[in-house]
């Protein structure tokens, strides 16, 4: 197609140090037209980011394109000189990244970072012209108070504002191609919605082509014209967004779409009346003990007057964006932090401010699973040693503890051979299963899962969620499930608590909350969930 902004044919990217010609991307072909958003979808290790870096010519140390062709507006990029590539970057193609905090230079004002593009690509522009352009770009991406905001440093802006700055930078020289590498993954869901709208709007107004990298079919459903699905460095399937979403040809694509949280309806379940945990007016303010030489602390409470109760066999979801206090609440409940005030009742015992020595006896009842499975297991201990610790701490004999660890491994779907291995020999999903097994070793009544599936690929995420559901049924476990993703929560939880700025905004049964939320903020959150309409229609089908 002549109209293509970008066309990639048979691209292969190899590891330069590998004598066997090991590749990370092999035989990838795709194209992007004007005014078109093409989504490249895949899980981690699929080669989607490497593909986009090869287009820009900014592959990291040790990787290089081996064969194939990348044409930008008809011009071949593979083999182009470094000088030419530098010209094209910014001028014809631009890129925005996943983490806008780290993608901006922390010691330069954001305005300067936009302005320097003009300084080196358009040296003839006067300083005052540059200033005007920077301002109008800031207006274009709908930043508030553009005149002032360009004088700030990245750490003084919010995540969404930083990503807008990145977009302003990318659009500075009006390139034909914008590559967006998971640009909303690190953002809160309401901010994600605004950024997606902004990108769609810019495509319509300026006619640029967008190559949008994502792992989330929900996002695909929102914005894509066409879709390319990648796995292990190769293209699995491609086609128009509508076709791929409604009639995927490959089983792998099907499984990715099914794994999007919220594509299944939560079932109504019966829960016993037995209350295992009652939290009353829990508050936490950080830094209430600042010394003479300590840094100045802000004293806004991270958690204010949170109350909740949890029944045996119930899964309670706590949903909120970053800074909502959901993690503080979780950490206070498992007493990894001491709350400033309020009560935590385990039966008729209040553990809220109990001293560590006494608390140790009650820790048995509440166990926790963390977000990052890579850091949750002691790298120097064999899995067997990790699994017996909880039981041994509470007086089980070595034999009983080791028998129990075998049973637990079986329960989370791993076999005995895992006992003699070290954590690094397992995948992320397997490690998270081990973490769950470890948490169950002391036979707790309550499991706190703090963003326990957020770091996992969608397909693995779905399996771990199934496991939690299974454990609840088999063991009558009560689970507090903390997440930023309303869709995940909706799929698993009986009841939801929505938090914002340290307070509980709304709580109620999942179905009621989804169908008729009473608070504005809950409605906003629901509306912002990507792929909502698509998922709704999928559920009906």
């Amino acid at each position, binding site marked *: 197609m002549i109209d293509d902004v970008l066309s990639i044919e048979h691209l292969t990217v190899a590891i330069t140090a590998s004598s066997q010609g090991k590749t990370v991307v092999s035989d990838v072909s795709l194209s992007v037209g004007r005014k078109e958003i093409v989504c490249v979808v895949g899980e981690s290790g699929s080669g989607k980011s490497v593909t986009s870096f090869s287009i820009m010519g900014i592959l990291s140390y040790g990787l290089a394109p081996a064969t194939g062709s990348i044409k930008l507006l008809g011009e071949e990029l593979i083999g182009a000189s470094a000088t030419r590539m*530098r010209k094209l970057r910014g001028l014809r193609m631009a890129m925005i990244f996943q983490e806008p905090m780290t*993608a901006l230079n922390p010691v330069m004002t954001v305005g300067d970072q936009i302005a*320097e*593009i003009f300084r080196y690509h358009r040296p003839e522009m006067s300083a005052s012209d540059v200033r005007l352009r920077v301002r109008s770009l800031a207006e274009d991406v709908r930043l508030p108070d553009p005149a002032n905001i360009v004088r700030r440093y990245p750490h003084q802006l919010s995540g969404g504002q930083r990503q807008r700055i990145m977009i302003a*930078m990318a659009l500075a020289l009006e390139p034909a191609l914008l590559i967006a590498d998971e640009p909303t993954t690190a953002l809160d869901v309401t901010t994600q919605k605004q950024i997606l709208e902004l990108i769609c709007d810019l495509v319509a107004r300026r006619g640029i082509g967008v190559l949008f990298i994502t792992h989330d079919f929900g996002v695909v459903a929102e914005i894509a014209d066409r879709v390319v699905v990648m796995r292990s460095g190769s293209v699995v399937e491609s086609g128009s967004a509508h076709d791929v979403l409604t009639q995927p040809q490959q089983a792998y694509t099907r499984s990715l779409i099914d794994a999007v949280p919220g594509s299944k309806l939560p079932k109504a379940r019966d829960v016993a009346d037995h209350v295992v945990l009652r939290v009353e007016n829990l508050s936490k303010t950080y830094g209430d003990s600042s010394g003479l030489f300590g840094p100045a602390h802000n004293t806004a409470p991270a958690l204010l007057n949170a109350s909740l109760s949890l029944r045996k066999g119930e899964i309670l979801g706590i949903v909120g964006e970053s800074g909502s206090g959901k993690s503080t609440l979780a950490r206070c409940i498992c007493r990894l932090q001491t709350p400033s005030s309020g009560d935590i009742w385990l039966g008729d015992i209040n553990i809220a401010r109990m001293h560590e020595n006494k608390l140790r006896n009650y820790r048995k009842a509440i166990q926790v699973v963390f977000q990052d499975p890579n850091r949750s297991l002691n790298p120097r201990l064999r899995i067997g040693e990790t699994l017996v610790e909880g039981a041994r701490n509470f007086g089980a004999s070595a034999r009983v503890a080791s028998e129990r660890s075998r049973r637990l491994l079986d329960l989370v779907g791993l076999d005995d051979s895992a006992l003699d291995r070290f954590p690094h020999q397992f995948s992320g999903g397997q490690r998270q299963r081990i973490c769950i097994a470890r948490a169950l070793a002391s036979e707790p009544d309550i499991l706190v899962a703090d963003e326990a599936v957020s770091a996992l690929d969608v397909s693995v995420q779905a399996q771990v969620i199934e496991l939690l559901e299974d454990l609840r049924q088999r063991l009558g476990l009560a689970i507090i499930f903390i997440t930023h993703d309303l869709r995940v929560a909706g799929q698993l939880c009986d009841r939801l608590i929505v938090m914002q700025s340290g307070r509980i905004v709304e709580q109620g049964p999942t179905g009621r909350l989804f169908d008729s939320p009473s608070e504005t903020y809950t409605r906003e959150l629901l509306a912002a969930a990507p792929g909502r309409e698509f998922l709704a229609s999928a559920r009906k089908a």
Partner: protein
Amino acid sequence: MVRFLFRRLLSIIPVLAIVSIIVFLALRLGPGDPAAILAGDSATPEMVAAMRAHLGLDQSLPQQFLHWVVQIAHGDLGRSITSNQPVTTLVASRLQPTLALAIATIIFSILVATPLGVLAAWRRGTWVDNLASGGAVIGFALPAFVTGYLLVFVFALKLQWLPVQGFVPLSEGFWPFGRHLVLPTLTLSTIYIALITRVTRASMLEILGEDFVRTARAKGLPERVVLFRHALGNSAIPILSVIGIGIALLLGGVVVTESVFSIPGLGRLTVEAVVARDYPVVQGIIILFSGVYVLINLAVDISYAIFDPRISY
């Protein structure tokens, strides 16, 4: 800003207090009676007792310490046992050579090491990098006395370009002053250059892997801008901090270097005082050097705020 400066100034007080307690206790609790030493070998017990009273040694330890600290605060570091001159006078008379050597070394080292480290990181894995990194590892292992004598052997004895040793004050002309300073500066710089190069390279490598460097490249900026403005600008703090910490190494190196080149500076004074068991002089120099170290690192700390807007006042 004022509050920040005030807090930082306050924070050096405990450090200086610990330093003075260590120095004070070491001399008071060490073997040997200072009064007996001061009174000399032929002193009678009465003379020693008189000396003890004169020095305030009959007071309790805390009282003595307090007395001593008040003295230091007034700029009085005591008197030398051997020459009976005030320690401050002795120090002042030996200050110029040491100051000249230290300043020349710091400037020379920073000018050589920073670009070298940047280059090595930028050309990672090439011969330039291997040469710079390898040189840094070797330079870090070379003791000042080895470097010094090797340099003397080549440039003074064989080539006869530069004087073997000695020091000429600046008042006798810049040329002789400079000529005598070249070899000692090179000697003292070796380890400092090695240290700064190593840290510059390491922190540049880390920064070059950061997302914002990728952004800068994605914007199509020239490589020199990416390297110096974006990467080096963000490496400033580790580099500055190693320069500050390296001051301790430098002050230690001064003692050896001055000895190799027979430079009549504070380092030589230290060695002379130790050999003569002239404790007040040793004490005074250690307090002085530690004070300089603490103040330089305070300055480095405060300068962080200039290089990084995230560090708030």
